């Protein structure tokens, strides 16, 4: 192991990790928004739109992110829409993640006993108050493990961003291997970098999940 090499290029990894984290976080947050909207139109049974949401979810979940990115980055300019590499990356990640988040939120909503809704309405709560105080806290508690798994999954998926010339962790590793043939060092640092990003996230979600269960949320006892 060439520790001198590793020390020299560590700043490049740190910088790339920053990009991975920044784009990943943006994608995750926007995915939650898209997922919430999709989940809402399906539960509120908004005509036509719910079918569109259903079709989108199937499309996004059954095509690879790399293909989605190529479509955005190389396909759209052909019809005159030119987006920056970062915009393409976040859009692609959101397109993919929105579908997964919609399904995670749906599983949470479906786990709430329909009678809970009636009990809230019978107390004279408005539908909005009922959603906020009765339904969502229970639905989110059930959905948290799936949301956490999706967040970790989405950050890992950012490793295809290098395909559209973004200098993320994967890009740096491939670059260093190509230039210096230090394959072992470059890949070790790549692995450690992803672990450094994702382990804390996984642990944070596990703790949150345990706390919610301890607080007596949902049916999990």
């Amino acid at each position: 192991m060439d520790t001198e090499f590793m020390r020299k290029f560590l700043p490049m990894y740190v910088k790339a990790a920053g990009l991975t984290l920044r784009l990943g976080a943006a994608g995750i947050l926007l995915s939650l928004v898209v997922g919430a909207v999709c989940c809402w139109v399906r539960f509120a049974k908004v005509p036509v739109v719910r079918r569109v949401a259903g079709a989108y979810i199937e499309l996004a979940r059954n095509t690879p992110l790399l293909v989605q990115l190529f479509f955005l980055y190389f396909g759209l300019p052909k019809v005159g829409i030119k987006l920056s590499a970062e915009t393409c990356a976040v859009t692609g990640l959101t397109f993919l993640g929105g579908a997964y988040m919609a399904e995670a939120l749906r599983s949470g909503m479906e786990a709430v006993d329909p009678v809970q809704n009636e009990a809230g309405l019978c107390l004279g709560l408005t539908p909005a108050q009922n959603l906020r105080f009765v339904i969502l806290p229970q639905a989110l508690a059930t959905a948290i493990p799936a949301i956490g798994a999706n967040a970790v999954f989405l950050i890992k998926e950012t490793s295809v961003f290098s395909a559209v010339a973004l200098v993320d962790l994967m890009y740096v590793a491939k670059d260093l291997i190509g230039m210096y043939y230090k394959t072992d060092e470059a890949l070790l640092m790549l692995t450690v970098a992803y672990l450094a990003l994702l382990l804390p996230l996984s642990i944070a979600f596990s703790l949150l999940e345990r706390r919610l269960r301890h607080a007596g949320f949902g049916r999990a006892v």
Partner: protein
Amino acid sequence: MEKTVLEIRNLTKRFDGAGVLNDISFSVREGEVIVIVGASGCGKSTLLRCINRLEQPDGGEILLDGKPVGGGDMVAVRRQIGMVFQSYDLFPHMDVLGNLSLGPVQALKRPKAEVEAEAKAALARVGLADKLHALPRQLSGGQKQRVALVRALLMHPRMLLLDEITAALDPEMVREVLNVVLDLARDGMTMLIVTHEMRFAEAVADRVIFLDGGHIAEEGAPDQFFHHPQTERARQFLNTFEFDSIKKS
């Protein structure tokens, strides 16, 4: 002569074309306790659920204090009609105090401190003073159902709808819940009660309504209904609670 709280006129409800409630009419006076009995599937629960619009009736009219229910603001109507279900349906993510104060604080916008003080006193009256901060899953069925009753009462409703509130309970817990309901009846709470506890029905009711096939087949004072039923259907129904005729020896 007491005021009429609830009036139901020609209420009709169909599920997939089949009539569940046909032309139901009756009224409930202030402080009156009406028990609705009948075989399962006769429309008892549907009747209660139509009153606060958990189900949409297909025809007829429901008046609360003379004002038609439905069409307009159902939230306001539901604030005046409390309902308790068979399955308690406490909110599992809130402690007992949270369950009790959610409605008054959010729906009625009453001050939290005032509501919580009232909740504590009300809980003590049903023998659960020490359960203020317990979670629903830490309570027995009977305790949960008493909390659910208090939750409905803290809204200070005009009337209560009780939908088979003891059907999921063990016999010894049935008693503790029914005692609370008997107390409420004595205090003059207007109630519409669906139950299979015939002895309780006889004790608590001012009037009994027997539903059969979506119709009111018989209606009368509990004394008369339970001991001298007028219709053959009512006699058959009441006989299903007797085991004398099929004793082993």
